């Protein structure tokens, strides 16, 4: 074992800056995907629950297909193949994003300088892949949560005069979403870890920056270890925060 470690070089200059940028990108991708995946997951789940058969078939096919195929394949699919099914206007908009979001621009009165968020087609497709993949899992988990709520709750809400959607909106989902918080924690953590896969498209996330440092500075071991510690820290912090939130909610639920 004749490998000299250069830990000091990891925490200064270019490597430190790259890692920080990678961390920011990873967090941005994860946050956006998680929010979108929650919304899409709830929609898919409610579609599965509606009495309207074509909706049920669609959401069943959606969840089964996206849960049983690898995320990497889906990322390649969205990036390489999906332009066939996306309208041309959106395709050309995505290919022109560099001109829409240059390195320096003003938005809502704020002046952004530098690569605040490198919005480009790779990033968008990565986010879409992560969102769709995670939403299939979230839909299944919320469905399990809804099944754990007695069916007569919905019947009672219908009897009170709420419509089907209102029954879900005001009676079923608020209860079910609390029950599914623990499985959703693990989905959120999985999403953050899965976001490392978008590096295959060249999105400059944490994992990409680690491979970058590996090839530019020849510090593979240090780079990947620091990346590991950052991912570990993110996981621990997120699970701690959501566990706290969960406890807070549980007290309210126990009436």
């Amino acid at each position, binding site marked *: 074992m004749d490998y000299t470690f250069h830990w000091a070089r990891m925490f200064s200059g270019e490597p430190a800056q790259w890692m920080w940028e990678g961390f920011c990108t990873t967090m941005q991708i994860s946050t956006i995907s998680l929010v979108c995946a929650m919304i899409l997951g709830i929609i898919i789940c409610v579609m599965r629950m509606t009495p309207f058969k074509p909706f049920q078939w669609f959401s069943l096919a959606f969840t089964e297909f996206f849960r*049983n195929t*690898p995320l*990497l394949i889906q990322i390649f*699919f969205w990036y*390489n*193949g999906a332009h066939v099914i996306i309208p041309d206007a959106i395709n050309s908009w995505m290919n022109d994003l560099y001109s829409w979001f240059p390195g320096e621009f003003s938005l809502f009165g704020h002046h952004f300088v530098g690569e605040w968020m490198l919005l480009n087609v790779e990033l968008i497709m990565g986010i879409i892949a992560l969102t769709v993949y995670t939403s299939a899992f979230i839909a299944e988990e919320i469905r399990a949560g809804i099944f754990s709520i007695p069916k007569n709750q919905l019947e009672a809400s219908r009897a009170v005069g709420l419509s089907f959607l209102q029954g879900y909106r005001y009676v079923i989902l608020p209860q079910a979403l609390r029950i599914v918080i623990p499985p959703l924690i693990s989905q959120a953590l999985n999403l953050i870890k899965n976001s490392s896969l978008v*590096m295959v498209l060249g999105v400059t996330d944490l*994992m990409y920056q680690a491979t970058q440092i590996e090839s530019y500075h020849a510090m593979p071991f240090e780079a*990947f270890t620091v990346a590991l510690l950052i991912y*570990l820290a993110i996981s621990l912090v997120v699970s701690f925060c959501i566990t706290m939130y969960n406890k807070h909610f549980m007290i309210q639920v126990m009436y």
Partner: protein
Amino acid sequence: MHWDIAFGNLDYFLYGTTSFDWHFPFIHNPEGLVASVILAFFGIFGAFWLGMAAGLMRMSKRWWVKIPAVCYIEVIRGMPLLLLIFWFYYLAPVIIGQNLPAFTTTMGCFMIFTGAYVGEIVRAGVKALPKGQMEAARSTGLSHVQAMKLVILPQALRNMIPSFVNQFVSLTKDTSLAAILGVIELTRTGIQVDNRETVASFEIWITIACLYFLICYILTSYSRRLEAQLSRYQARDR
């Protein structure tokens, strides 16, 4: 749509070569779907035993048995598989002084990665059994190890099968990551054909996704049968 290109390359996806040439060395240079299945099979095998060991160690009362298992499970569960693969790939020369082949590296990573999750499943499965089972087994004169082996684990394993299936299906999907280190498996053949036939990306990736779907579906359906068989006495009791 160019489905003819995707289906024309189906044998390439399946075997990694366009000629039906089965003369590949068994482990070191397998190809296409065969490589994916071999990776998944050995990954599942290794992950099962590693996870079993980690889960049982984690439940031990001796700290020097428990702490390594806790560290292993918590660290691995907190890191992405891709990172583990890269880490392992660059760590190997530092530790053993020589590069490992990409195939061996990825297979080892699949075992280590899934092993941690299996460890948690084992722990949850054993914890879910009534405490009286262990006490009753001990009171009949069995040692702790014997009680585990003869009373606790047979019951716990049966309850763990659905979770195992989930984990093994996700391992099967994770084998696609071997493509990033250049192992010629299902995903890599997809990348190769995609680079060659750029007009048919959509069809190529849909076809590859369907092949993975098929593998996972077969795995799930066989496991369901296994589960039904193993819990047949349990079902009668209820």
